[in-house]
């Protein structure tokens, strides 16, 4: 049974319904990011980062492409959810807020796509 009044529903007032889901996904991505980002940081710290061959060999090795794609995707997801909350907190003008949120979402999608593309390019290159 909904606690919302019909007038409230008609005026579009009140919670947008997806709030808890956002909160939950933020936690799920956070939990996933603990091992993923630690793995990425430790791996990068052991690589000779100026050596392109070493770096690309590492990217293409075994499970790394999968882990890298997952890390990039989950980082972007966690990031977009977090930034959304910040914008919702500080931008009060509806139009500006909507446009900013759209832009932020699009940028994150592009960033994730670019990252995954780069990893796959390296992973699928001919040996």
């Amino acid at each position: 049974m909904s606690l919302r009044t019909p007038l409230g529903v008609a005026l579009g007032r009140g919670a947008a319904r997806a709030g808890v889901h956002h909160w939950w996904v933020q936690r799920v991505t956070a939990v996933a990011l603990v091992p993923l980002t630690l793995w990425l940081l430790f791996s990068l710290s052991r690589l000779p980062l100026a050596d392109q061959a070493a770096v690309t060999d590492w990217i293409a090795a075994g499970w790394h492409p999968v882990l890298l794609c997952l890390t990039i995707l989950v980082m972007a997801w966690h990031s977009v959810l977090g930034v959304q909350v910040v914008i919702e907190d500080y931008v009060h003008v509806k139009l500006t807020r909507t446009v900013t949120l759209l832009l932020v979402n699009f940028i994150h999608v592009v960033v994730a796509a670019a990252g995954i593309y780069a990893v796959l390019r390296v992973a699928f290159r001919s040996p």
Partner: protein
Amino acid sequence: MPARPLSPHLSVYRFAHNMVLSFSHRISGLYLALGLLVLVWWFGAAAGSEAAFADANRLLSHWFARLLLLGWLLAFCYHLANGIRHLLWDAGVGLEKQQARRGSAIVVVITLLFFAVMAWRLFAAAAGTP
């Protein structure tokens, strides 16, 4: 429709350590979001030509870039430590005032230790490469 009133916040709250950690969590998160852009850009360069990768690394070797990178490392260490504290809070752990205060201290100590270790590993190693 008139704008709804907003409660005062920064102007009325007494300074408290937890408050600083809370801002820092948000700020480090935003800074890390920027860092994600740079990380993906660097992966793109690694996937690209030798010239592209060399250019990227040269840019990142500049003292200002190094400073920003150290910042990203610090932001990451902090956001991870405090993030885990947030997850514990979500599970109901550590919500009492004394526990939260202790938690704040633990987060700061872990952040600094982890940062020191990783900064040494990453930058000492980098100093050794041509």
